[in-house]
């Protein structure tokens, strides 16, 4: 039960003033700029854009600064901001096959056309803290090599040519694209809605869910068919212009998970797949997303769905960290009246208990 509570205005105002002061920290230390956050904490910005579900580096950097580095708070701020702007429409679907690849690895084929390209990665670093980074570090200029003009086809396209992997589901003519920011979730949910939910879902939650499938809770034998990161062009069919106009480029990470076979009396067995896509360089996120996407296809693929990661209602209802934090953190707001009524009930129960126990011995004595 919620009731209006009056009072505390001055305390709240002063608490916010104190917050602004704490956010700034020691004022003899230079203030951090949005450019610094965007350039030097780029992966935090990527995460806030992905889970805030809004591609805008500058806004994500501002949110991180305002939230004192609390990324879930920053995601909350970005989500609130997006609600203030009108939507012009939806883009043409981006073509990740035409991505200007800055990283592209496959754990299934050593010799993929276009090659294994490591790009800027933490992989193969020793995870030893580097004291030289503490101050004044100037990195060496990157090495360069002649860039190949060869295409970098998706690994799934190569497997698909021989029919070794299931094709991606195609849209039915005239089918609309589900949008969970417009309609409330209903179950069972189609895969477009599930992917939208996972794309804005909490990385930690998806990581744990994906990990659980690897440990046997909904096992589906994954291989990282391909992970790619780079820039893709965005086009928007503008009504006033009458054709698709270029909007510029965004950075995306895509993960194609290749999973164990499915076949039937009428269909030859083939690999199945799970898909992950997110803003920026978000590798852990897209890998986890692809694992969970595949697990959530249990029903469609006729698998026994016993594990949490295969339960779409469980996964989709708990993946959103803004919803989750709202409900968990509302517990700290005043619940005085609720609590008073519980307290009243408890006192009554205790009194009844005491009376019953007092009455008992007297009853015995009477007998």
């Amino acid at each position, binding site marked *: 039960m919620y009731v209006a509570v009056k009072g505390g205005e001055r305390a709240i105002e002063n608490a916010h003033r104190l917050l602004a002061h704490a956010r700034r920290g020691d004022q003899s230390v230079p203030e951090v700029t949005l450019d610094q956050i965007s350039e030097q904490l780029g992966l935090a910005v990527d995460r806030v854009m992905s889970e805030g579900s*809004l*591609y*805008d580096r*500058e*806004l994500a950097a501002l949110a991180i600064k305002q939230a004192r580095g609390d990324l879930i708070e920053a995601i909350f701020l970005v989500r609130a901001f997006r609600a203030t*702007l*009108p*939507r*012009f*429409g*939806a*883009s*043409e*679907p*981006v073509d*990740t*096959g035409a991505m200007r690849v800055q990283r592209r690895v496959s754990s299934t084929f050593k010799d993929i056309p276009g090659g*294994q*390209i*490591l790009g*800027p990665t933490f992989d193969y670093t020793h995870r030893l803290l580097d004291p030289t980074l503490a101050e004044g570090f100037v990195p060496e200029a990157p*090495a*360069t*090599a*002649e*860039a*190949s003009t060869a295409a970098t086809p998706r690994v*799934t396209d190569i497997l698909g040519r021989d029919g070794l992997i299931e*094709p*991606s*589901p*195609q*849209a039915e003519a005239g089918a609309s*694209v*589900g*949008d*969970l920011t417009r309609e409330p979730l209903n179950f069972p949910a189609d*895969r*477009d809605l599930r*992917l*939208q939910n996972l*794309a*804005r879902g909490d990385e930690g939650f998806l990581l744990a869910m994906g990990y659980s499938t690897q440990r046997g809770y909904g096992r589906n034998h994954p291989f990282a068919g391909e992970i790619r990161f780079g820039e893709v062009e*965005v086009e*928007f069919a*503008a009504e*006033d*212009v009458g054709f698709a*106009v*270029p*909007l*510029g480029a*965004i950075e*995306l990470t*895509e993960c194609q998970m290749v999973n164990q076979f499915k076949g039937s009396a009428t269909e030859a067995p083939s690999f199945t*797949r799970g*898909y992950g*896509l*997110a*803003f920026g360089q978000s590798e852990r996120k897209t890998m986890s997303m692809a694992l969970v996407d595949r697990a959530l296809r249990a029903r469609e693929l006729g698998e026994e769905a016993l594990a949490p990661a295969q339960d779409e209602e469980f996964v989709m209802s708990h993946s959103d960290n803004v919803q989750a934090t709202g409900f968990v953190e509302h517990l700290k707001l005043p619940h005085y009246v609720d609590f008073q009524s519980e307290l009243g009930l408890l006192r009554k129960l205790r009194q009844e208990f005491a009376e019953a126990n007092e009455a008992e011995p007297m009853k015995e004595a009477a007998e």
Partner: protein
Amino acid sequence: MAVLAHAEAGEIAARLRSLALPDHQDLREPENGLVMLRGRIGGDGAPFNLGEATVSRAAVRLASGEVGFGYTLGRGREKARLIALCDALVQSRDFGAAVERDVIAPLREQLLARRRKVAAETAATKVDFYTMVRGEG
């Protein structure tokens, strides 16, 4: 026009300053909004909604009647207006060639140079596998 969407507002404005621009007016005041970005299931399947992006748009009309539209990612309203102005100018007989030569072509070269740099740095991280004969190494 894709070149302009990749450029900074300041770069476009600086290039336009070298031209004696004709009179023009805003047909649509520059405004901010959102576009829902879509991906495809599996990269090549049915579309799904990935998340939104901030977008700016504007429309400009030259005194001679040509109408240009400007759309770009981000909240740069001035950039959208400059793109709309360029879009109108390229349609005009008097300014089309000059805008292509003095604005778009140099910005295109700058964009391609940036992409070549990233591609060369990326290429250096490509793995060259070699096979060791058993018993060696």
